[in-house]
């Protein structure tokens, strides 16, 4: 167990491309941090720098009080779960779990105890003598997590561990990872491009874009007060409506802003609403419906209860305090 500190961390590849820059994150002991962003935003690079698989060009990584910039991955006291599981195909599940411990000269009895314990936690006891080839995707994922657990490391690093699973299994495993982390209270750093996964798992989210941190905060903070237009558009599903301020001059504050953001659920249908939505399509989700359309040339989506009346034109009123204003040049939040 330990805290992790990323201090002005940066990565410049040979050739001068900057993949990551100026990253400052303080991860408390036992905290679950999710790095989220679109592909190519540098989130995996960041994780691999913490793991020691990628060299650090600028700044420092500290695990506990120790600067680990030059420390070998094996000596950083971390365990990593990979996207494609990276199980050793020629070893049985038991050998896969035990391999890291064996290399550390852990006594045999201790290895057996920890492997059995991890197998119990993850319910993979009956697969211990099978080869990874004979397991399903979800089971392999469990084994990969088991390999991390048996090490009892200071921190878990997850690199998109669920993206090879089908949608239903992903939701189930997501919950399991969350429960497991709450139970073990091991500091965790988790990388994903799926904003829903990020929201549901994180104690705190780190939203990355173009190698820089856009915002750090709890899921609700990030959802309610996105620090930039990018975060506003990235977090939340369906995505926030980002309208050009010039197209909706009647909304309060739009005179100074570049973009006005309104969450789809923050718009009410009223008889005299200022926004006129030309409906182009409706998606039924069962519990609610998504209504797509445009107003003054801007695309817009709103969510309505599934029994709400529909017509070709809807007049909408934003709820009070639901407007997000973003700067014209920087895209930063204005209040």
């Amino acid at each position, binding site marked *: 167990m330990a805290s992790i500190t990323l201090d002005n961390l940066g990565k410049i590849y040979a050739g001068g491309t900057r993949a990551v820059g100026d990253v400052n994150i303080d991860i408390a002991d036992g905290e679950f941090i999710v790095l989220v962003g679109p592909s190519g935003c540098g989130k995996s690079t960041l994780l691999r720098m913490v793991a020691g698989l990628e060299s650090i060009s600028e700044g420092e990584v500290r695990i506990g009080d120790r600067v680990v910039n030059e420390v*070998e*991955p*094996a000596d950083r006291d971390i365990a990593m779960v990979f996207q494609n599981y990276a199980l050793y195909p020629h070893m049985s599940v038991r050998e896969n779990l035990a391999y890291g411990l064996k290399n550390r000269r852990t006594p045999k009895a201790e290895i057996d105890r920890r492997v059995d314990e991890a197998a119990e936690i993850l319910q993979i006891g009956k697969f211990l003598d099978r080869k990874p080839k004979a397991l399903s995707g979800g089971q392999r994922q469990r084994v990969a997590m088991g390999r991390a657990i048996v090490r009892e490391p200071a921190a878990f690093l997850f690199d998109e561990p669920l993206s090879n699973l089908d949608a239903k299994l992903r939701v189930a495993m997501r919950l399991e990872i969350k429960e497991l982390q709450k139970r073990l209270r091991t500091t965790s750093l988790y990388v994903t491009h799926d904003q829903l996964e990020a929201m549901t798992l994180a104690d705190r989210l780190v939203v990355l874009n173009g190698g820089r941190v856009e915002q750090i905060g709890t899921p609700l903070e990030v959802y309610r007060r996105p620090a930039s237009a990018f975060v506003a558009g990235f977090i939340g599903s369906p995505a926030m409506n980002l309208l050009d301020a010039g197209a909706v001059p009647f909304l309060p504050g739009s005179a100074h802003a570049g973009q006005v953001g309104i969450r789809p659920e923050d718009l009410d249908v009223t008889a005299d609403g200022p926004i006129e939505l030309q409906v182009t399509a409706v998606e039924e989700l069962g519990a609610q419906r998504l209504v797509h359309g445009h107003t003054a040339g801007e695309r817009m989506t709103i969510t309505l209860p599934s029994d709400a009346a529909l017509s070709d034109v809807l007049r909408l009123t934003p709820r009070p305090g639901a407007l997000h204003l973003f700067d014209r040049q920087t895209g930063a939040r204005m209040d």
Partner: protein
Amino acid sequence: MIENRPGLNLLAHLTLIFGVCVVALPVWVAFVASTHGATDFMSGTIPMWPGPHLVENYSQMLGAGVSTSGTPPVATMMLNSLIMALAIAIGKIAISILSAFAIVYFRFPLRGLAFWCIFITLMLPVEVRIVPTFQVVADLGLLNSYAGLSIPLIASATATFLFRQVFLTIPDELTEAARIDGAGPMKFFRDILLPLSRSNIAALFVILFIYGWNQYLWPLLVTTSSDYYTIVAGIKRMADAVDGLPQWHLVMATAMLAMIPPVAVVIGMQRLFVKGLVETEK
């Protein structure tokens, strides 16, 4: 092919049967010859069915050899051949897999040069460099020794490319997982790479064993003492009877015996061999 036309099937089978006959007929004739007496093959008609002298011919060859041609008993020559073939196969695999490991997993100065040096050995088989190689081996005093028989043939890392290809199919994450699991380079090599290349090693072993066993020109050159004659070169010496007719029945018996080890290796390792050549997924 899922096509199912009887005519096509028949044609395919006829072609295959013809192929088998072309390969098998000389082997059959050799076998028949090895079971007849000394004069039967000189009498004008070649017998097509086995004769009565099978046990006699084979036991003579295995035990005593042919005194007139100066070759030792076949058992000795087969042992020599076996040692040479095994040394070549194992030596080549060891060198190739280690050099492939170095080239794929390490960044070292002059890596490009090392790669090209290995590549050049592809263009320099023994036959091309036979005179200088003989000179080197002779100067080192390795004539008439197992080292002289095998080392010059080991010294080429052609199989490096095969192993390089195998290693490139092993996902990077596996390497990284092993690094995090605390496996150093040699431990990674032993615990992960070797087991994962098992079937490729087996396939290569079959090919190289037969390559080594069938060496003819080089053993003929470096062995002058009959203690180090290999079987393939020995057959040639037996057939060269200067003071009489070649004893074809004994030559053929030797040839039949010489075929057994390669055939045994192929049959014994068939499954791994095929797997090693067709398997792509790791």
